[in-house]
């Protein structure tokens, strides 16, 4: 399991080759890339801002959850920050697992959770010189403090 946030270009071959094992019959690599237009507006580029310290731990949590669901620890996820051009890779997710369904499910879970929970923001620049923060998702509220405290007698040693 390897997760990181970087402001350097993502080496996708490196991400892919960090997963895989003789026990695995399936490997999957997902890439998110910057598109040339968004809802019809021609895009010049995109700046990704992150709450870097928190993003690193959220990304690691997400990968851990995906690995648990899929029964594999061969998961690598990297998210880019900084100024990106059209076609640049903003996120790369690699998973390998004994069977294909798990690899698909895990990669899909990671990208959906990234969009839902990762503290990252996109500042899109348009060819007309304007720029905008893209609409985002409201992360699920954490469990209330009181609910997180185990009831007496339920604490595991």
């Amino acid at each position: 399991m390897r997760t990181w946030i970087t402001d350097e270009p993502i080496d996708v071959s490196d991400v892919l080759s960090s997963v895989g094992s003789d026990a695995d019959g399936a490997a999957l690599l997902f890439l998110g890339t910057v598109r040339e237009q968004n809802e019809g507006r021609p895009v010049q580029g995109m700046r990704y801002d992150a709450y870097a310290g928190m993003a690193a731990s959220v990304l690691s949590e997400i990968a851990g959850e995906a690995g648990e669901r899929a029964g594999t620890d061969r998961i690598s996820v990297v998210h880019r920050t900084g100024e990106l051009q059209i076609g640049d890779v903003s996120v790369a997710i690699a998973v390998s697992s004994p069977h294909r369904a798990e690899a698909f499910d895990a990669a899909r879970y990671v990208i959906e959770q990234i969009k839902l929970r990762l503290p990252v923001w996109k500042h899109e620049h348009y060819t007309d010189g304007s720029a905008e923060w893209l609409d985002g998702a409201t992360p699920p509220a954490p469990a209330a403090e009181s609910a997180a405290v185990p009831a007496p007698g339920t604490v595991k040693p």
Partner: protein
Amino acid sequence: MRIQLLLFALYRDLTGVSELDVQVPDGATAGVALADLRARDARFGRLPERPVIAINREYALLDAPLADGDELALLPPVAGG
């Protein structure tokens, strides 16, 4: 007590603040601390009343209590990927 306040993206643009070391009432929850800030500093009036927050890099509820030295982040809707 003092906390470290962090703002990102749109909230940073709205307030002109990215990072601020602030004094908040002892024992305040995050919500109380924000209300206090809003009363003292007009810039924070431009933010939504109930933003998503993180305390010490974990998502938290506005009624979560703060401790001295905590890092309180105000997070606009996120857009990773």
